[in-house]
């Protein structure tokens, strides 16, 4: 089953990777994650002034001997990392060559595999205009089959409502972690209000904007009535070179706008064309962006 989305050679390479985060979240269990919280461990982190009541075992007597002042040692504390993958399964994801849905599944499978291989907690939610399928966060490599089975069962359908999903995700108050939104963001209501919901939860958000090449540079020509796959609304166009130039400009502006918005609000934006080889996206792009290492 895993071979349907990821081949075994690629899986071997994924096992060498692990998710990274710039933020350190408070988890319920100590996992193999560093935390910025100052806790008990062997790894020295910092000094602070001694105040009455601190544990005197962590006083640095060397500094006292030199400076005749009392300083307390601080150590890094390790904890769990939660990875939430929000996967757009609306009808618009059924387009593209290769199909955006397939590409998104592969991406989710890869990220989920990396997380599960590193004992991170991985949860998935498939959505269109509401949450359709939910896989609760789970840990361990043994859960990979469950992840893949979950992904294989997904079929694109329905309209997109990012606002509904983002809001419903945040209000559940899941444990803080990495949120990876994989979507084409082609929502008639826009993306801004939806993405802003992530700010409430102090998540590390990665927006993987998935588009097919023909959505950036269309190949249609002539006098057409374009039917929206999700809304079934039609728009009459006479596609010619000037209009195509404007479309390309619009698409670029669309992507640039999302990128600017994400940057402004501390989210990570990655534009992924389905024409980009999938392994290159994982091993190169996401690694450079700091999601995995």
């Amino acid at each position: 089953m895993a071979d349907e989305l990821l081949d075994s050679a690629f899986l071997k390479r994924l096992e060498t990777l692990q998710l990274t985060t710039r933020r350190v979240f408070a988890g319920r269990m100590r996992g193999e994650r560093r935390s910025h919280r100052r806790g008990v461990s062997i790894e020295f982190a910092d000094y602070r002034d001694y105040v009455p009541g601190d544990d005197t075992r962590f006083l640095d007597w060397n500094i006292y001997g030199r400076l005749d002042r009392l300083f307390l040692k601080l150590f890094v504390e390790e904890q769990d990392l939660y990875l939430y993958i929000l996967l757009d399964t609306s009808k618009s994801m059924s387009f593209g060559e290769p199909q955006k849905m397939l590409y998104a599944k592969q991406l989710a499978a890869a990220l989920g595999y990396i997380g599960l291989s590193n004992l991170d907690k991985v949860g998935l939610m498939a959505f269109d205009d509401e949450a359709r399928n939910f896989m609760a966060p789970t840990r361990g490599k043994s859960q990979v089959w469950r992840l893949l089975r979950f992904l294989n069962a997904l079929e694109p359908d329905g309209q997109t409502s990012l606002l509904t999903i983002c809001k419903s995700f945040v209000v559940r108050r899941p444990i803080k972690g990495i949120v990876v939104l994989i979507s084409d963001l082609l929502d008639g209501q826009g993306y801004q209000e939806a993405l802003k919901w992530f700010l409430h939860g102090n998540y590390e958000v990665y927006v993987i904007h998935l588009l097919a090449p023909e959505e950036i540079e269309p190949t249609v020509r002539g006098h057409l009535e374009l039917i929206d796959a999700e809304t079934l609304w039609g728009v009459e166009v006479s596609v010619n070179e000037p209009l195509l130039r404007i479309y390309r400009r619009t698409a670029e502006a669309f992507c640039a706008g999302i990128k600017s918005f994400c940057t402004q609000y501390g989210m990570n934006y990655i534009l992924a064309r389905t024409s980009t080889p999938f392994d290159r996206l994982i091993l190169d792009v996401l690694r450079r962006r700091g999601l995995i290492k």
Partner: protein
Amino acid sequence: MHFLLPVAAFFALTIPVVILLYLLKLKRVRTEVSSTILWRRSLEDLMANAPFQRLRRNLLLYLQILILLLLALALMRPFLRWAGLAERNLIVLIDRSGSMQSTDVAPSRLDVAKQHALRLVEDMSRGDRMAVLAFSDHPEVIQSQTDDRMALRRAIAAIMPTDARTQLAASLAIARSLAMASKNAEVYIISDGGVSERDLALNDLPQVAFIGVGERCDNLGIIDLDLREGLGQQRESELFVGLRNFGDQPRRATLRLLLDGKVIDVKDINFDPRAPKSALFRNLTATDGILELRLDATDDLAADNVVQGVLHHKKETNVLLVTQGNFFLRQLLELHPDFRVTAVSPAGYSPDPPHDLVIFDDWSPAELTPGSYLMFHAAPPLTGVRATTEPLTNPVIVDWNRLHPLTRYVNFEPVSIQRALHISAPTWSQVLAESADAPMIMFFEDRRVACLTIAFRIQDSDWPLHVSFPVFLSNTVRWLAARSKSDTRLTYRTGETARLTLRQGERQVVVETPGSRKEPLQLDEAGQGLFAATDRTGLYAVRAGNDVVQRFAANLLAESESNTSPTKTLSFQGRILTSQPERLRTNLELWFWLALAALIVLMLEWIIYCRRSSL
């Protein structure tokens, strides 16, 4: 800019039709896409931020509208005033002489001339007026000054050809009077040249243009005809025919002679280029009939290939001699084979029946009835003519009219006259010979009477002993008798006035022309009349009631008209006019350039459409 056909602006109504068709829904292909969000934004951007893009989307529509506008403008026939003056008065002289029937230009030179004139009508601007004259041997005002183009077109179209010669002087005189009466006059002479007059003057006609018609000369023509009476007993006649080849190529043709429709002789004629030729038909029997010559040749002018004539067998001249018994005079008259002399005494004189000539010898009646008279030693009872009772003794003829056909070759010097009447000649008479004291030979003529008066008796002079006397008498009898007979000429030339004399009593006759036109003609008391409308070749029939009482013929017989060489110049005193067909274009029409622009825009529109469809 002006428009010759402003009503064509209605063609612009096709523009809304095109717009309507453009607005109708195009057949579009339904295509499913993942999302139309970006497409909608693109269209909004196109509409809101790029007006030029909107314009470019409708570029085909605008080009189509432009094409229709250009075509509508072209149909309206706009023109720019190119030459000429505002509010012109055009005077157009159109030659319709015989040579204008030449077919070297199709359909004929006259038709081409009419087309030129019509073009002048089309080029008229508002305020312009035009008068049209047609001329051959005389001018005719076809249309007086008017700005009514329809009337001008009708008048020009109605101009018919004639077979007459080209005489321009009278037409120029009319044109001059019209030009003097108007401002900005422009005279156009449309002709093939061949003007028979010399030293024509344009005088104070400032704006005269000559527009020549005709391209070549390829014509054989009969240009002369003469019938000579034979001297033999059978009085056979000879017919002399003058022909000419006016073309540059040698030609051969057959000349046929017909009498009353039957061919009586045929001759083959070989013509050298631009050379005359003659033919002589002998032994024509003395008979009345219709003579016809046909030159079988295909050439540019057919009017000079057929000549018709009316043969009149010379009849006897009926002479009534009123004399007391002048045997000598009677003998002289009876010697003449054509004279049938009847002698009566003055008491037995009666004006009826009428004679061709009445000779009064030493006697004058109280009244002269219409006719021709010769008087010896008597004063005719005419107004102002009186004879004194005192005779002249031994008058000597000291002077005589050396130009008059009767006295031209008579020498009166050796003539002695013993006695003569002293006749006072009124001023309206013509003195043919005179003595120192009084006229000796006088000619009186009015509408009714032609009378030659000799103031002396022949027996009172030795004139009979001179050879001139019998010749004078013979000529005088014939000459006077001819005045009371119908003209016996074989043919007239077109444009000549035919002199008709019919039996007395006929006052109203109808002359039927070769074109089946019926012209009424009023005759005088003497039964004479003049018919001037001989502008077509062929036979003319004079009808009194239902009967044809006389026939006569008119033919071209004009070398100047048969010579159809077109001329590019007209010579006048001090001026030479060169043919200027470009003067016809007083207006620069723009329709051609507009139509060309429409075609170019159409091609551009097609190119753009093809490029868009292939995207």
